[in-house]
């Protein structure tokens, strides 16, 4: 209708720069997604990247929850300081 398509409402003068900046950030975000590693450099639409990022974050949250649950079970029977020794010994990093 009236406006073109300024992604950023901030200032119409800078909207072109913002568009490029945003699409650059979207591309970087896409590169982090697990699917992106399979599909080399095909650009996904922003909405897709946002959706995939959302579900990726949620799946990472689930992983953290599951691992925390497992860890809490282990901690019920072992105390932390001996766990510490085990961890250091296994040379994690």
């Amino acid at each position, binding site marked *: 209708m009236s406006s073109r*398509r300024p*992604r*950023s409402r*901030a200032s119409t003068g800078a909207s072109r720069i*913002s568009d490029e*900046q*945003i699409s650059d*950030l*979207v591309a*970087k*975000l896409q*590169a*982090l997604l697990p699917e992106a590693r399979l599909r080399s450099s095909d650009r996904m*639409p*922003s*909405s897709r990247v*946002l*959706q995939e*990022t*959302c579900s*990726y*974050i*949620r799946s*990472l*949250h689930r*992983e*953290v*929850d599951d*691992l*925390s*649950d*497992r*860890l*809490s079970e*282990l*901690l*019920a*029977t*072992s*105390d*932390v*300081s*001996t*766990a*510490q*020794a*085990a*961890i250091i*010994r*296994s040379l*994690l*990093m």
Partner: protein
Amino acid sequence: MQGRNCTTGKSSTAFKQELLKNLLRGLRARTDACAFSAMSVHERKRAVKSSADVAMAAARGVGARWPKAILAAAAASTSSNRSSCQVRSSRFRRVARRCFFREKRRGPAAGVAAASSVDVARRLVRRRTMALRKVIPGGDAAMDEASLLREAMDYVVHLRAQVDVLRRVSEAMQIRSSLLRYAPSSIHGQEASSSMRQ
């Protein structure tokens, strides 16, 4: 070269080490207050999850917004002593799921006459941006889209590191508890000397 917010290689290891250190410290502090064996299953899970999140946030420091949001929420929950942390995170997930379903049901531009494809695309981006804000701690604060995208990248990278650290800790402890079961003498002598040193 990745963006300056992405931690790869050396700085990722440094972050994980910091996270691990914070995690162990945090768990120890909690266990000093109340032994894990004395807690209910639910309390214990919440305590570990909270320690993991606080450890991650503290290790990240000031370079992003989400750590502050996590630490603020953790502080609020310790003062109220209810499971508000859990409520927050499950609320995030519940709202995000609701948003997703709402999207599916309404379909493309239902009830809007003559919407251009640009309008539809923009609306979809806006909806998905809102959903993204809800899964990032502190994401619902006022910030422009560029900042939100940077936050998302930063958060994803550090979440992955948190997953990695938690996995390694669980595995190390699992190995240890298996060893205790099958070869207790191999552990016992070493444990005794190292715990005395500590």
